[in-house]
């Protein structure tokens, strides 16, 4: 993976950030100008990714054409499989649910300038912790069981990524490498626990922990078959957005991301910021693991490590590390996943087809960072 382009994606200069803040216009029309400026930036922030998305659809269409498929038919199927009906929408949202929480694990530390890619580890270990905690209190009322599970998943996931932040801050260890390595450790630990101390002897060919009580299983949201994990993800994302964009804490965090040394000079407690944000990031992924156990599998087992964490990294980068943008991007990727089956069934395309499409979108979005600030439509024309 091109590290430079990854770095570019979190580079705060690529964001419509304070550095690009225009001088407040003087005179009577100052307010209007400021509003126009805001609109311009919002327009650019939305138009550039959409343009990249369109370009990737053209590129993927050419790829399909080269393979002898009608791109329009392919897109029609993708639409039908992902968004074409109520059933398809639910299918998409079910797949998007774990991705939102998993993506926040990368998106939050990115605002501090940290590239954390150990989402899978925090998700897995959070899921195991949630299962263990739920089993420890399985005679309690269902709501208590769920709360204990959520707390356990978030705390353990938070400590897992918090440790990454601590290693980075106190020992200077690269957080990208350490978080990735910790993910392997988490998966190995999970395998050891569900195949050993936590194993339900009746789980013969798929080693698993004992099941949490049926009554404690988190059901679907009313009128849908989408579980409540989706709502948790949306709430967590919105709260993260408010925290990062609308509070002094978030401002301080972004300042560390912009220039750590300057932030230190300004008297900010950088260590505390790193530890807290990393803890929140891990808590998001840990909650995703808890939801997998409490809403999907009912047990901890290898189904926790199926790559939601890794897809979450992709979602975070596509959302340009904006916690709010994580939601639509997760839905887009959920939709692509949901339609993958239909492409396989109707056109006989291999599963890798949707991976190719995801890859093209990813590359196009990274490339699109280059046009930010260069589209005339969105540039200021009056002042200089």
């Amino acid at each position: 993976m091109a590290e430079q382009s990854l770095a570019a994606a979190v580079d705060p200069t690529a964001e419509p950030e304070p550095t690009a803040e225009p001088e407040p216009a003087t005179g009577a029309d100052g307010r209007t100008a400021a509003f126009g400026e805001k609109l311009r930036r919002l327009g650019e922030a939305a138009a550039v990714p959409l343009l990249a998305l369109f370009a990737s659809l053209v590129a993927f269409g050419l790829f399909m054409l080269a393979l002898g498929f009608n791109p329009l038919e392919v897109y029609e199927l993708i639409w039908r499989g992902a968004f074409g009906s109520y059933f398809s929408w639910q299918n998409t949202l079910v797949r998007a649910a774990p991705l939102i929480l998993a993506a926040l694990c990368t998106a939050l530390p990115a605002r501090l300038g940290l590239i954390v890619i150990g989402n899978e580890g925090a998700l897995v270990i959070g899921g195991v912790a949630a299962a263990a905690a739920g089993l420890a209190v399985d005679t309690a009322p269902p709501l208590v069981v769920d709360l204990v599970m959520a707390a356990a998943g978030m705390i353990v996931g938070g400590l897992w990524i918090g440790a990454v932040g601590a290693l980075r801050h106190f020992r200077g260890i690269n957080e990208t490498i350490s978080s990735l390595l910790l993910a392997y450790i988490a998966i190995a630990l999970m395998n050891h626990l569900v195949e050993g101390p936590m194993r339900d002897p009746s789980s013969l060919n798929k080693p698993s922990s004992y099941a949490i009580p049926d009554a404690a299983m988190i059901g679907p949201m009313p009128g849908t078959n989408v579980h409540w994990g989706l709502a948790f993800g949306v709430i967590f994302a919105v709260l993260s957005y408010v925290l990062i964009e609308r509070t002094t804490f978030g401002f301080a965090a972004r300042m560390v991301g912009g220039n750590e040394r300057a932030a230190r000079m300004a008297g900010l407690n950088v260590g505390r910021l790193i530890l807290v944000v990393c803890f929140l990031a891990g808590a998001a992924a840990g909650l995703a693991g808890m939801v997998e156990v409490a809403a999907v599998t009912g047990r901890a087992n290898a189904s926790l490590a199926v790559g939601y964490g890794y897809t979450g990294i992709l979602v975070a980068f596509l959302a340009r590390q904006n916690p709010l943008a994580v939601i639509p991007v997760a839905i887009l990727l959920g939709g692509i996943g949901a339609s993958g089956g239909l492409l396989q069934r109707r056109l006989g395309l291999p599963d890798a087809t949707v991976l190719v499409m995801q890859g093209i979108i990813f590359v196009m979005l990274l490339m699109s960072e280059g046009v930010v600030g260069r589209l005339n439509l969105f540039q200021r024309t009056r002042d200089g």
Partner: protein
Amino acid sequence: MTKDVAVSRRAVSRRTVLGGLSAAAIAATPLRAAFAADLVVGFLYVGPRDDYGYNQGHAEGAAAVKQLTGVKVLEEEKVPETNAVEQSMESMINLDGATLLFPTSFGYYDPYMLKLAAKYPNVTFRHAGGLWQEGKAPKNAGSYFGYIDECQYLSGIVAGHTSKSGKLGFVAAKPIPQVLRNINAFTIGARMVNPKATTQVIFTGEWSMPVKEAEATNTLIDQGIDTLTCHVDSPKVVIETSEHRGIFTCGYHVNQQPLAPKGYLTGAEWNWSKVYVDMVNLMKAGKPIPNFLRGGIKDSFVQTSAYGPAVADATRKATDAVKQSMMTTDYVIFKGPLKDNKGNDLIAAGKNYGQTDLWLEKMNWLAEGVIGATS
């Protein structure tokens, strides 16, 4: 209309366990309209269809079903063992009208398939490897599997005859009953013809992890092992690496002879084509598919690969004789006296565990002669 018409025309049997033998009773109930539209059958695989292994075995079965008239086959590969499989099956039902589904991976069964079976009582679900239990699981659900350890036992006999050092190797995924049963059957077979033979086993911990599989293979060969077999989702890496290192191999899942033209001895293969075609034909005829379906070599659920060039004539004869007795009698692999590899007595002299014995489905031990541990 006898009870097991469809399971096999050749030889059906005490060994094919029919769920509650209630087939005949259910057959008397009104038949579904079989000739309306095409029967839509869905297959779901956990890995790629062309993995030279577990998934390819099932995909070959699906390909055989495609040849039938009046049947439309849907396939989806690389479906993870999460609610994604639930979504994929539901999508097959809702968007494509599937009425018969074969989710083929262990982890699909509980809770995903069971949940959907309860939600869609008019769709028939049959799972590869699960343990369908009367009363516990819905009536429209069921499971099927093959006693492939019989073929591993035959592979063991060939390996025991052919190996010069008597040191055999086994690259295994996880220490679960189905894998342990293969390791033990292979070892018992080898030690029947060469009592000094041992099987060194390495567990990789994952169903599909090519790097670890290659490492395990090389490590085993470095220790002087000259005949190797495996139980992972795709044996491709193990077989190809062994061929490059110039040792003998026994295949698994499908025929890997093309990957190792020199060292391939024989192999344990699924014969899903027969199993799937039989089940689909039952469905087309409006007859019920047994809820619990198992079979071995005798029932053609499994088969062995043709012998490779390195297998001596005497070995072929000796192995064919055992195979012949499997075809015609209730051959017992797991019989006393048998110790585990820690020296404990497992099966007392005179005690037999036939293939259908549920005790074998809970296997958690390694037989004497296996070097390795389950945890």
